C-alpha cells in the first residue's frame, strides 16, 4: 500500500484553499490524554476479543481432563505440560494428518505457481488474438462453487483408479487455485513496462528465455504473495478433502480434526485442545513472519470471496 499520489482533485482543492493555515499548536496535555482514552479503551476491548480466545485455547491445551471437568474454563492450568500434545500427536494421529496435508499441499502449490505464472505471462505479455477471451474464461472459474465440480470429479477419479491416493486432492487443488492465480499474475505482469520485454526481444532473446530470466524474477514478490494466498486456501480446505479422502490413513489435518472429537468420545478435552493448537500454529507462525504479504495477498484475492 503506497502513499496516495496527489490527484488532480487534490491539487485543485489545495490551490483553491491555499494559503492553508496550519492547525493551532498542540492542545494542553491532560485534556488530550482524556480525549484519547475512549479510543484506547475501545482498542483494548477489540484486542481482547480477537486475541483472548486463542490464549484460552493454548491454556486449555495444558490442562488435565480433571481440570477441564471440575475447574472453571478460564482457570489457569495447574502446570505446563506437553502430555496432551504427545497424546494428540501419536494416539490422535495428528502426525499423519499433518504429513498428508503437507504431501497434498506442496505439489499442488508447485503446480499452481509454475502453471499460473506462465499462463499469466502468456495472457498479459504475449500478443495474440483471443487472449482476453481466455483470461475471461479463467475468471469465470473463480466464481464456480466447488460443489459444481465435485460429483463428476469423484466419478472420474474413481473410474481412473486414483481413489485411495492423494492425487485427487493435488489435481483438484491445482485446478481450483489456477483461475485466481492466473488472474492475479496477469494483473502483476500488467504493471511491468512492456518495453522491458520488447527490448529483450530486440536483443534476440526468445520468449521462453525472457520469461525465465526477466519476467519471472521481476514478479518474484508477487509470486510469494500468490503462493501464500493459495497455501491458506489449500491448507484450510475442508470440502475437497472431505469429498475425495475416504480412508482414515489419508485424512488431511482439517478432516482429521473434524473427526477427532468423535473418536475420543467427546471427552478427551486436553488432546483436542492440543490438536486444535497444532493446527492453528502452522498458519500463525507463517503469519507472524509474513503478515504484510499475507494481508496484501488475501485482500487482493478477495474476488474469490
Amino acid at each position: 500500500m503506497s502513499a496516495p499520489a496527489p490527484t488532480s482533485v487534490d491539487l485543485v482543492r489545495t490551490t483553491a484553499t491555499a494559503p492553508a493555515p496550519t492547525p493551532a499548536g498542540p492542545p494542553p496535555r491532560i485534556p488530550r490524554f482524556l480525549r484519547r482514552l475512549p479510543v484506547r479503551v475501545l482498542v483494548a476491548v477489540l484486542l481482547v476479543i480477537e486475541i483472548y480466545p486463542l490464549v484460552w485455547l493454548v491454556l486449555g491445551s495444558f490442562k488435565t481432563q480433571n481440570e477441564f471437568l471440575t475447574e472453571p474454563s478460564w482457570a489457569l492450568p495447574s502446570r505446563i505440560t506437553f502430555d496432551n500434545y504427545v497424546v494428540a500427536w501419536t494416539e490422535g494421529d495428528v502426525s499423519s494428518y499433518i504429513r498428508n496435508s503437507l504431501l497434498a499441499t506442496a505439489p499442488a502449490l508447485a503446480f499452481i505457481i509454475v502453471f499460473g505464472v506462465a499462463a499469466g505471462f502468456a495472457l498479459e505479455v504475449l500478443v495474440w488474438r483471443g487472449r482476453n477471451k481466455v483470461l475471461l474464461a479463467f475468471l469465470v472459474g473463480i466464481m464456480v462453487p466447488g460443489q459444481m465440480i465435485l460429483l463428476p470429479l469423484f466419478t472420474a477419479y474413481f473410474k481412473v483408479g486414483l481413489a485411495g491416493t492423494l492425487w485427487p486432492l493435488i489435481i483438484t487443488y491445482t485446478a481450483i487455485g489456477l483461475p485466481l492465480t492466473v488472474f492475479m499474475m496477469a494483473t502483476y505482469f500488467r504493471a511491468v513496462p512492456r518495453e522491458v520485454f520488447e527490448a529483450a526481444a530486440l536483443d534476440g532473446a526468445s520468449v521462453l528465455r525472457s520469461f525465465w530470466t526477466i519476467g519471472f524474477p521481476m514478479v518474484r514478490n508477487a509470486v510469494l504473495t500468490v503462493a501464500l494466498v493459495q497455501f491458506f486456501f489449500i491448507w484450510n480446505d475442508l470440502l475437497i478433502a472431505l469429498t475425495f479422502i475416504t480412508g482414515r490413513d489419508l485424512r488431511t489435518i482439517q478432516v482429521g480434526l473434524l473427526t477427532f472429537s468423535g473418536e475420543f468420545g467427546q471427552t478427551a478435552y486436553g488432546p483436542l485442545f492440543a490438536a486444535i493448537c497444532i493446527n492453528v500454529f502452522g498458519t500463525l507462525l507463517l503469519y507472524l513472519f509474513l503478515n504484510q504479504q499475507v494481508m496484501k495477498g488475501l485482500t487482493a484475492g478477495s474476488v474469490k470471496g
Partner: protein
Amino acid sequence: MHSVLGDRKAIVILLGPALLVYSLVMLAPVLWSLGLTLFDGNALFGFDYVGFHNLATLAHDPQILSSLGFTVKYAVVITVGQVLLGYLLSLLYVFALRRASGIVRTLVFFPVVLPTVAVALMFQQMFAIAPRDGLVNELLHVFGVASVDWFGSPDTAFWVIVVMDVWRSMGFYAVLLYAGLVDIPEGILESARLDGANGWRLVRHIVLPLSLPVLLSAVIFSINGTLKVFDSVLALTGGGPGESTTPLTLYMFQTAFTYGDYGYGSTIALVLTMLSLGVTLLVFRSSRNDITEVER
C-alpha cells in the same frame, strides 16, 4: 518484434498446462454436472436417465426452500455484519489511530488465516453447556444469567455461526476498506475540516460518499463468498439442530454423499451456481477496479 512476442510455440508451452488442467478439471466437470441433473443414481451403482424429474423435484422439496432461506439469510446477515464492523474498524484505523494503526490492523486481521475447522471447534468449546459450561456461559453467570444451550435451538445456533464468522472476518474487511479510505486525498478532508466538518459530519458527508465504490465491492465479494459457506457451518453445528442451519452447499453434499443421489445433488449445485452467477454479474456491472480492466 511483435512476431517474437507472438511466438505460437511459446504460447502453447506457457499457457498449455494451465489451460489443459483448468479445462479438464474445472470446465468439463461443470458441463458434466449440468448433464448429471438429468440422471438418477451415483458413481458406484450407475445412472438412469430421468429427464427433468430432478428439476421438478426442486419445486416441492421443503428442504431446498429451507436451505435456500438459510443461505440467503446467512449471506445477508454476515455481509452486513462484517462489512459494517470492518468499515467502522477502518475508520478507527484511519482517523483515530492513524500512523499507530499498523500493529492493531495486523492483530485484528490474524483470525482470517486460521483454519476454519480449528476456529469452529474452538467456538464449540467456548459456547459449550455440557458436560461443563464454556467461556460464554461462564460470562453469563457473572451477570446472573443462566446457561444457554447455544446449539440446542435454531436461532441461537444461527447467531453463534454469525458471531464466529464476523469475529473471523471483520479484520479482513477492515484492511480491504482501509486501503480505500487511505486513497481519499488528504486535501479533500483538509478543506472539509476547514469548512467546519468534523467527526460524524465529516464521515457522513465526505468520507462515506467517497468510499461508496470500495464499500460496494466489499459487499459483493462478501455475498459471493458467504453464499458458498460450508466449512464453518459443517464444523460448528453440522447443519443442526435438525436441518435448521443447513446451507445449500451442505444440503448438496449430504444429498450426494450421504444419500448417494448424484442427480439431485447436481441439481442443488446448479441452484447454488445460478445464485453465485447472479452475484458475479453484479461484480462485472458495478465494481470499478481490476475486474473491469480485464474485460477491456
